[in-house]
Structure formats: C-alpha cells, structure tokens
C-alpha cells in the first residue's frame, strides 16, 4: 500500500483542485484530506458522512469561581497570558490556554480543573470517487498534527480493510507540525507551486523539509504562464536537486468554473487542462512504481 501527499508550501497554488482531479483519475484508493485547519476538498468531493468521531486532544485549565481566592498566583506564573482577573476572581481564556497545567499545579486553593479538550471532529465518508477520511478542527484549536496522524491511521486501516492499494492525501500549507505529520510514512510528496517569488521561496522551504525527513519529492508548476521566466528558474532549481518536474500547467479559469459546479476539473473532459492532468497522473504513477 502506497501513500502520496500533495503539498504546497505556499497556499493557493491549486493543491486541492489538483488533488480532487487525481482522486477522480486514481483507481483503488482512499482519499484523505489532511488540511484539517481549512479543509476544502469536501467542496469538490461532496462526501456523504458514514461515521463521525470527536477529536479529543490535550487539556485546558478551568478555574472554579467558587473556590478561587483571588490570590493571582496562576496569573503570575502563566507564560501564555491566558489568565486574567475578572469580577469574581481569575479566569482562563481557553483561546490562549496552552494546556501546560502549571496553574493547576501551583494553585494554593486547588481551584483549577484540568479537562480534556474537544478540538474537532473527524469523519469517514463515501464519495463518487471512493472512500474519504477527513476532519474539521474547531476554529482556533491547536493544530499539533495529532489529528493528521489519526486521519492517516484511519485511511490506512480503511485501505487495508477494502484491499485498496493507495492513500491519496491533500496536505496542508506551510512547513509546521501538520505538514510534518502529513509526511510521516509517505512514499512520495508532490509539491504544487506557482511561478511567483512567494511560490518559489516557499517551494524551497517545503523541499528542504522533505529532504530533512527523507521523503521522495516531485514538483508540479501550476499557472506557469503567469511568469514563464520564473517557471524556468523553478525548473532549473528542480534539475539541480534532481526533483522530477511532473507538469507545467497553465492558469485556467476552468478550475474555478468546475469548483463552482462542485466538480473536479477532469469531470469536464473536453477541457485541455483535463488532458494534461491525465498525463500528469500517469507520470505520478510511473514515479511511484519506480520508488519501489
């Protein structure tokens, strides 16, 4: 069973739109949306939820107003500026609370409870392209990557149970915890970039990240016609580092048109863009077979 993650470094390069199309083109797979902060793949795949689970992770402190004596030790120790004085003693701001337990440990009145935090939900669903595992963190929740690991585990178990040989993941932007977790156990990371200064800058950082974690890396240059010179510079960078460039795709409003209709672009087969994506996916498959 293989796992591919589509990542981007920079947001807005077309990662999710392309992942949606690959979900259409790939056979025998489980699709997994690992962008748990701002997931969008479901807008294209329109999953029907079959299973819903709460995601509990970490803890948060809550001061019992009845027991609080107003001594303020908690506020003086809190490194995260999460404890403020109110009319009836002190209160913890759950948005700022880091869940470190220092206030709980030091409160002389033992007035602070430490409770499991409900951070979001995850789902196992069915779509017109097969099974999908996805999630939504509550806004403002910690995004340690733990939920990403839960989703990957579920996707792998589902693939094994159904005899499917691929887990195809839509990754998150950036290079932090969630992206690092996305890369764990992955066979191939495909980075979607765009020929802009930010696109190239962020591509290099995410490439370094994959190198750091020894994950095979390939690149798709999207919207290449916005700046062909920059696109060529990106290709030169990839050649230097031996990163396969899987495609140079044009900036095409058909992506947005498909999105508005709740479709992936390959469901509009008459589009030239769709044909390019079909060849791109074939190249990804060939690359995966080569990775062994």
């Amino acid at each position, binding site marked *: 069973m293989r796992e591919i993650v589509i990542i981007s470094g920079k947001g807005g390069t077309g990662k999710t739109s392309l992942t949606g199309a690959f979900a259409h083109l790939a056979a025998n797979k489980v699709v997994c949306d690992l962008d748990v902060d701002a997931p969008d793949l479901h807008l294209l795949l329109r999953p029907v939820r079959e299973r819903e689970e709460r995601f509990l992770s970490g803890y948060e402190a809550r001061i019992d107003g009845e027991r609080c004596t107003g001594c303020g030790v908690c506020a003086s120790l809190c490194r995260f500026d999460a404890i403020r004085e109110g009319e009836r003693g002190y209160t913890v701001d759950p948005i700022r609370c880091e869940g470190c337990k220092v206030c709980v440990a030091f409160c002389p009145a033992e007035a602070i409870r430490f409770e499991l935090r409900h951070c979001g939900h995850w789902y196992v669903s069915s779509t017109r392209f097969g099974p999908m595992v996805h999630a939504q963190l509550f806004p403002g929740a910690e995004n340690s990557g733990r939920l990403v690991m839960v989703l990957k585990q579920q996707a792998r178990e589902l693939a094994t149970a159904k005899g499917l040989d691929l887990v195809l993941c839509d990754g998150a932007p*950036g290079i932090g915890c969630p992206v690092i977790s996305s890369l764990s156990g992955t066979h191939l990371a495909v980075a979607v970039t765009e020929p802009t200064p930010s696109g190239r800058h962020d591509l290099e950082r995410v490439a370094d990240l994959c190198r750091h974690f020894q994950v095979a890396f390939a690149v798709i240059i999207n919207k290449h016609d916005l700046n062909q010179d920059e696109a060529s510079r990106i290709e030169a960078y990839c050649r230097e580092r031996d990163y396969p460039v899987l495609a140079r795709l044009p900036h095409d409003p058909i992506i947005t048109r498909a*999105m508005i209709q709740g479709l992936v672009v390959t469901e509009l087969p008459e589009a030239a863009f769709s044909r390019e994506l079909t060849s791109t996916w074939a190249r990804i498959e060939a690359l995966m077979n080569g990775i062994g």
Partner: protein
Amino acid sequence: MIVSVASGKGGTGKTTVAASLATIWDRPLVAVDLDVEEPNLHLFLRPNLEESEAAHMEVPVVDASRCTFCGACSELCQFKAICAMGKLILTFPEMCHGCGGCIALCPEKALSPGTRELGEINRGRAGTIGFLMGRLRVGEAMSPPFMRLVKAKLNEMIAQSARDAIIDAPPGVSCPAVNAVIDTDLILLVTEPTPFGFYDFRLAWEAFSPLGKPMGAVVNRAGLGTDDLYRFCRDKGLPILTEIPFDRAIAEAYARGRVIAEVSPRLKETFVSLRDEIRDLAERSRPGEAAHA
C-alpha cells in the same frame, strides 16, 4: 494602531494586501511578517535587513548531581519534554512548550533554564517603513512560541518609537493564525469569492469573531466566483472595505514580484481608500463611539 491581515484560505492575497497597504501608509509604520513558516512579505517590500538575531526559547536543563529522581517534573509535563525513566531524567527539548513549570516545581532546584533555537528574527527598513520578520527553522514543528518572540520584538520597536504596525498573518484559522491576530487592534480578512475562498472565510469569521476585534473584509479577485460571500458579509454585518477585481494583469504583476499598489494609479487609489476605511472602522468601533451610536 496595529492592523493584522489574515485569511482562512492561503493564497487569497494577504501578503499582496499587506505589502500594498504598507507602501501607501501615510504615518510612521512597521511592516511585520508573522507568517514565520513561509514568510513572503520581504519579497515584495525588499527591505534592507540591518539586524539579524537567533531567537531562543527556554527549555529545562537537568543538573544530575542535585536530582533526587522524585519525578515531579515528569509528572507535571504535559508534553513529554522532560520525563523520568527509571533512574534517569531525559529531556526532549523539541517537545518543550516553554511553560517553565518543571523548573518552578523542582524541589531540589535541579532544573535550570537552557535555550533552544527556534529561528531567526530579522529587522530592517524598506524606505521609511520599518520592517520585522521571523523565519522559523525548517524542521521546527511549532510556530506559536517563535511568533511570541517576534511579537515581543515588535512591542520593543514600538515602545522605542511609536508607530502603526501592519501584520502579515499566516493562513488558516488554527493556533498560528489566532496567535498573529489576537493582540492587534483590527483584523482585515482577505478572501476571494470562489467556493474554497468562501468556505475558509466563514471558518476565519468563526475563529476570529470571539476575539471581539473590529473586522473588515477585503475581496480579492472579485468577479471570479459567486455571490455567497457577499450575502454572508451582509448577514453578519461584516463590512467589505474594498474589492480588488480579478485581472490577469494584476496576477502577472504579482508573479513578477511587484507591489500591486504600484501597478496603476487606480490600484493605488484602491489601497488609499482601504487605509481610510480601516481608520473609519477603528474609529466606529471604539467603546466611546458605540455609546454615542
């Protein structure tokens, strides 16, 4: 005044708007890049970087000669950054969140503060605009501890010489994004009217509304999508402070690293009026004003 420029979805134009606003701002200003995982603001403002420092956070260091292996530190640590394993105290500095609890708790004073490098903070100027950015070390998992250090630096800079600040926030709505906007005076939410843009914009609205700050929307690539976004803003009473039309010429200028407020007089005017709208919104939202209304 500190304005943060945020968005739910990445790639909607946060950095574009932050850079353009900074170049037409008519008062003393610091432009700050708090997207420490993928900082891009410097690519557009092209600052002269005058100062660069490694930023560290505090992590525990064990003095084995004083340790009695009582295990209190291990018992407290929620992050497994310090743990008692048999007759050893092991530390995993990369897991540490810097809460200081173990050091404060140790009955033998066997723990002292050591440091761990998180990334680099750069300071400089782009013309008359002050500039500050943080660049997280690749492989470093958490942004918020590092973001706090950059924010502390900003406060130092403003204390030295009072200025406005425009903050380019990271994308998304989880803790890094919340961290960037939470101590600012006004949040600008940049979005695009596509289905992805609208969905993530709603998440951003849900994440940031509880913070109780004045919020305004900027619609980028207007014309490339549906009306849902506008209806939502109307329903929620969220003012749309300006729109930037979808225009391939703008996209190409951006792809060449240009600040789009400099592309045409019309675009410059768009950002000048955005600046004025921001100030009006800030005025209207002051507690005194609400009492009058």
